[in-house]
């Protein structure tokens, strides 16, 4: 037994400790606690056989900073006297501890032995010393609210005298057990079994499994194979995971009876996915092919969609959500969300795409949320802060720029946040002549698990995300990502694929090996897995846990036998563990064993096609909401400032700055641009290489507010938003029929809805919610067809409800469209901020009396009225004119109109430019159909703040105005010009409505939501 040692490092007291300073600020602000003095110490606990010299060198040279830190060996460093209390935060056993493992790596480097992550010998923890003598409950509160999350950490606290430095727990070895689960029980007992084992299977599904295992022939065969007649724990878990909503999209594939109560029409929808999503994309694909545009390469059938950039390159794009884990542990949920989503493009086709960018869209409860928190519910501000940090570390540490995103606030996201993580990647067209996007597997090929090791983390992630959250939600579902493990894995995979050593790759995400191998096995015809070979983080895992574990940063690779030695050698060089754990067969079975003992044997047909279909009910009736009472006369300068300061519109700089948006050195339009780098942009733009100017624009459309009035309008509006953002930045929409136009467009749809399955007791408005989903899908199909923008991938998340203490917080039905488009020349892109005084200012697109569910109405506390509608028959021609003007380089700045309408868009274009605007609103107000007398306040409000879709504000150099007006015709109206004086002026009927320095608007808009 090696001796236990502690090495403690702390900042030299003359240096500022910004971490402690931040904790003190938060303690004062959020807990009302003024802390006198606070010191942070990194403590490394280790069991290692070191002599005194090695220990001292490890501590002084290896772990501490000789210039900035002080170190203590088996005691606290100098200068730690004078503190009264402590809080010690450790990771729970089995939780990712990168800091500990990096220390272990340094130790192995010091000792000159090859690094191994297991067994873990060095464990990191954080010790906080406080000058104040605080009592237990106060220290606990500090610990739980500011310093740790009890789901992933454990802490101790108290007076200094009671401080005990951490002692790493020894992991117990256990005998591998395979349990038989009796299914010959009553129906009620089946329900209970599903619930107790967290299977998330309903009675019909449980009975289908029961019937499978009843088959006498099967029973006889199982007996011969040494398996019990009834399922093993592993088999039942595999089925539950494979049949989970998360993996099988049961509701998107259900048969839906849809009734429109307004029109009396009824119809049966045979799968939302097939009817709306796949069908519209198939039609677009057909039209494109007929026109000779063959850029649509692979849709829906792999981990991410694939489109063609040019002869040599493909673009791979995927957006996912990670909502439930982010509700429980915001940091861990978000970092595993982004890293997990990164593995989708990496695991597309043969694998090895190079990750290009991330895009993240987040929905939270408002930071000022004041409702009492339910048991297990975290305050939205905390969720926001944790998720933000997870995305920062997941993206930055992987070297992937975050070039686009959005943040939306609504109290209904206070139970479950929505965390959308998207990633674009570039893959070579082929590897040694073999198409990169195709997966190829033959019996006899080896199954290789590469990357991180397997622990108990994340067990039941797939089934758990298909459940609503409550306070009994499993803790093992929470995990922390390790960006460095994944970065090393992806560096390795890119090279391995390039060298032709990998036949195909897929991600180990929800469901772990069970899911990745279960998906690949049918392509070969079967698979057998030898679980005893799987590298474990620590001993003591049961066979089913090894197979189902969702430990992160792992990929499953398919490798031809003859390539295995070379792959192993390359893995060694990159210090990535790559282990052969099984092989593909032609048996038609998924066979799993542990040390020669059978653990599972399932027919692939049953596994993938045995799932009974769901039948669901949907009922639509258009909701009627009251319109707000708005005073006749308004101080528009103050209304505008209030809008600019609103949660949904105010500056995101605080968040954006903490994401690296320009690593790789090729981001052309970043989230913030202009002379001072603060003007928000419509789409992110990235150049593909240093050798040419081709690029990709990426945007996101999300508009949940409108769903309160009409889910169709909401979904259509979100789609249009994503499209118009790219058009605004200079993108060119597909034009089938024009052979020279072959620049791709592709979209990901991500639906996040509350439980939409009707239940008289638990979900009485389930039919209406499902009808909302139906309408969202209808809009998707209509918009995709109208703009020729195909879906290439997507995801749905169906149970976004938080339940506790007899209450339920459900998200509003939300859909995100993430759109990416090829740009032939990034130098022709257009940014949103105004460029020079004297330019003409134009409004493009038509304005309607559409203030329903607008940000403006939100100021007055109601949402009713006409919801903005998308009119593609008007929008499409406008976009083509805009594109024509851009081809001639006439547009100097362009910004799309969304939250807050024209007034807000205009204000945003001035941010950080040092310039101003002088605008007359009359031409806009008078163009609105209906709206009453020309001088009616309603007309004016619709003009200023209405959120009618498919509109832009653009500026044009004086010498180009005539040509611009000729191209745009009646679709553009000149409303004013840019001014050298940084003043913001809007006039109406000859009177100034808003007249203030732009600096005042900037001041209102600048807000730090997180501090």
């Amino acid at each position, binding site marked *: 037994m090696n001796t236990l040692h502690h090495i403690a490092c702390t900042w030299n007291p003359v*240096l*500022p400790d*910004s*971490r402690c*300073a*931040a904790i003190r600020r938060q303690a004062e602000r959020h807990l009302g606690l003024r802390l006198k003095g606070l010191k942070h110490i990194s403590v490394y606990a280790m069991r290692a056989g070191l002599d005194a010299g090695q220990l001292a060198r490890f501590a002084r*040279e*290896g772990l501490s*900073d*000789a*210039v*900035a830190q002080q170190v203590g060996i088996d005691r606290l460093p100098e200068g730690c006297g004078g503190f009264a209390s402590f809080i010690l935060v450790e990771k729970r056993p089995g939780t990712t501890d*990168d*800091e500990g493992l*990096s*220390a272990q*790596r*340094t130790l192995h*480097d*010091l000792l*000159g032995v090859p690094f191994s992550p297991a067994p873990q010998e060095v464990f990191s923890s954080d010790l906080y010393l406080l000058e104040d003598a605080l009592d237990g409950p106060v220290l606990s509160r500090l610990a739980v609210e500011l310093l740790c999350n009890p789901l992933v950490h454990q802490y101790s606290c108290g007076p200094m005298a009671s401080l005990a430095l951490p002692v790493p727990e020894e992991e117990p070895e256990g005998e591998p057990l395979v349990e038989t689960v009796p299914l010959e029980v009553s129906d009620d007992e089946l329900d209970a079994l599903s619930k107790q084992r967290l299977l998330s299977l309903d009675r019909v599904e449980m009975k289908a499994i029961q019937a499978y295992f009843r088959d006498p022939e099967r029973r006889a065969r199982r007996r011969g194979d040494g398996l019990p007649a009834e399922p093993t724990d592993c088999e039942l878990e595999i089925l539950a995971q494979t049949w989970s909503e998360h993996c099988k999209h049961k509701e998107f594939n259900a048969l839906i009876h849809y009734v429109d109560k307004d029109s009396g029409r009824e119809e049966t929808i045979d799968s939302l996915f097939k009817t709306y999503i796949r069908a519209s994309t198939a039609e677009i694909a057909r039209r494109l092919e007929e026109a000779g545009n063959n850029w649509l390469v692979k849709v829906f059938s792999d981990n991410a969609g694939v489109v063609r950039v040019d002869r040599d390159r493909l673009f791979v794009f995927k957006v996912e959500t990670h909502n439930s884990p982010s509700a429980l542990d915001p940091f861990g949920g978000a970092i595993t969300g982004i890293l997990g989503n990164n593995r989708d493009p990496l695991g597309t086709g043969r694998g090895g795409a190079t990750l290009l960018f991330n895009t993240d869209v987040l929905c939270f409860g408002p930071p000022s949320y004041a409702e009492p928190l339910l048991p297990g519910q975290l305050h939205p501000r905390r969720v926001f802060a944790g998720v933000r940090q997870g995305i920062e570390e997941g993206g*930055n*540490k*992987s*070297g992937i720029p975050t070039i686009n995103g959005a943040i939306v606030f609504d109290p209904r996201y206070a139970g479950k946040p929505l965390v959308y993580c998207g990633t674009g990647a570039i893959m070579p067209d082929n590897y040694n002549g073999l198409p990169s996007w195709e997966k190829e597997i033959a019996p006899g090929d080896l199954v290789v698990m590469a990357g991180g090791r397997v622990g108990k983390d994340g067990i039941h992630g797939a089934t758990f995300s298909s459940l609503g959250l409550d306070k009994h939600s499993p803790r093992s579902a929470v995990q922390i990502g390790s*960006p*460095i493990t994944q*970065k*090393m894995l992806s*560096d390795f995979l890119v090279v391995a694929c390039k060298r032709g050593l990998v036949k195909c790759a897929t991600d180990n995400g929800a469901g772990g090996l069970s899911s990745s191998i279960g998906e690949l096995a049918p392509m070969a015809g079967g698979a057998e897995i030898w679980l005893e070979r799987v590298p474990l983080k620590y001993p003591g895992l049961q066979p089913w846990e090894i197979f189902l574990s969702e430990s992160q940063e792992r990929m499953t690779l398919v490798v031809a036998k003859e390539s295995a030695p070379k792959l192993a050698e390359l893995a060694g*060089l*990159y*210090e990535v563990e790559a282990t052969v754990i099984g092989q593909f067969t032609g048996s038609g079975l998924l066979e799993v064993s542990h040390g020669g003992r059978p653990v599972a044997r399932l027919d692939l047909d049953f596994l993938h096609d045995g799932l009974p279909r769901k039948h669901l009910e949907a009922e639509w009736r258009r909701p009627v909401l009251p319109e707000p009472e708005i005073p006749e006369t308004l101080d528009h300068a103050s209304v505008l400032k209030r809008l600019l300061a609103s949660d949904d519109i105010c500056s995101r700089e605080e968040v*954006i*700055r*903490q*994401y*690296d948006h*320009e*690593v*790789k*050195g*090729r*981001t*052309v339009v*970043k989230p*913030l*641009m*202009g*002379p001072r*780098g603060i003007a928000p942009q419509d789409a992110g733009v990235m*150049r593909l290489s*240093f050798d040419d100017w081709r690029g990709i624009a990426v945007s996101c459309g999300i508009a949940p507010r409108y769903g309160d009035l009409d889910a169709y309008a909401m979904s259509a509006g979100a789609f249009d938003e994503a499209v118009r953002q790219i058009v605004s930045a200079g993108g060119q929409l597909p034009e089938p029929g024009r052979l020279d136009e072959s620049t791709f467009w592709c979209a990901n749809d991500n639906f996040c809805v509350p439980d939409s399955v009707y239940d008289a007791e638990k979900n009485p408005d389930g039919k209406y919610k499902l009808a909302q989903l139906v309408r969202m899908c209808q809009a998707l199909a209509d918009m995709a067809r109208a703009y020729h923008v195909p879906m290439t991938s997507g995801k749905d998340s169906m149970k976004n409800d938080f339940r506790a203490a007899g209450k339920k917080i459900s998200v509003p039905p939300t859909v995100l469209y993430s759109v990416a488009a090829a740009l032939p020349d*990034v*130098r022709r892109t257009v*940014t949103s901020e105004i*460029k*020079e005084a004297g330019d003409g200012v134009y409004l493009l697109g038509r304005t309607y009396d559409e203030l329903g569910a607008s940000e403006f109405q939100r100021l007055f506390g109601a949402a009713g009225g006409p919801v903005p509608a998308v009119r593609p028959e008007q929008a499409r021609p406008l976009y083509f004119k805009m594109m024509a003007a851009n081809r001639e380089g006439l547009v*100097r*700045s362009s910004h799309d109109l969304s939250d807050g309408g024209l007034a807000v868009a205009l204000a945003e274009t001035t941010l950080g430019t040092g310039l101003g605007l002088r605008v007359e609103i009359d031409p806009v107000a008078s163009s609105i159909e209906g709206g009453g007398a020309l001088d009616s306040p309603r007309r004016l409000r619709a003009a200023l703040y209405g959120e009618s879709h498919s509109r832009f504000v653009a500026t044009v150099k004086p010498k180009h105005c005539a040509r611009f007006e000729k191209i745009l015709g009646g679709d553009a109206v000149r409303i004013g010009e840019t001014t050298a004086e940084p003043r913001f002026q809007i006039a109406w009927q000859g009177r100034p409505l808003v007249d203030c320095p732009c600096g005042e608007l900037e001041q209102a808009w600048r807000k730090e939501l997180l501090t």
Partner: protein
Amino acid sequence: MKPVRALVLTGFGINCQDELAAAYRLAGAEADIVHFNEWLAGTVSLRGYDVLNFPGGFSFGDDLGAGKALANKMRFCRLRSGRTLLDEIAGHLEAGGFLLGICNGFQILVKSGLLPNIGGTFEQEVSLIVNDSGRFEDRWCHCRAERPARTPFLEDIDVIALPVRHKEGKLVIRDAGIRQAIREQGLCALRYCDAGGEIATEYPALPNGAEMSCAALTDPSGRVLGMMPHPEAFLSIYNHPDWARRREAAGGNEEGEGLRLFRNIVDHIRRNRP
């Protein structure tokens, strides 16, 4: 004439290798991206390379402090010859080679004692610690070069706009002696300044709170440069947040200011070839 050759290290979380290699290529040199372990295994050696480069990134996820774990590797791990990687670099510098570390690369050079190395013994004399803001930040800033330039990388550069993207960039100096040596020998190669060139003393123009507003250090030989800002992230004018206006002002010149550092060093090496 023999081409100038740059070796760009990668692996273990380094992530700016591609743009750094592109910078050398655009400046007319050849650049090879090499995994750290290829160097350690002896399959690649520094011989034949003019400039060794430590790019930015998050080596080992910034665990133990940014750059620390990789600096440890350089001090502890031995090649088959028994020499450490640090010994190899010392040999490379003695033979007239150059060394550049950017961001995480700078952190590695500082923590392995290569910068500023006033004592010449590769002892750590300064450190780069967490920014005063406590945050990682991506923001564009201005830097003013020490005149006259102590290092060929910065010849003829006065004020340059570059992005910083780091959490641990606050330079702290071990003691008064080192501080004085840095000042007297002009080793603080770049200092954060405002757009007009005035040395910045306040956030955000001084993004991290570094002593002496220092953004880059060179060693007394001028052959080693470490810097927090990213010149390889400004190879084209389209990297700049205000490129639309800058392009007009530049009369169509599409080159980024960061490229000048690489042209400088490549030209310098070429000029001084025996």
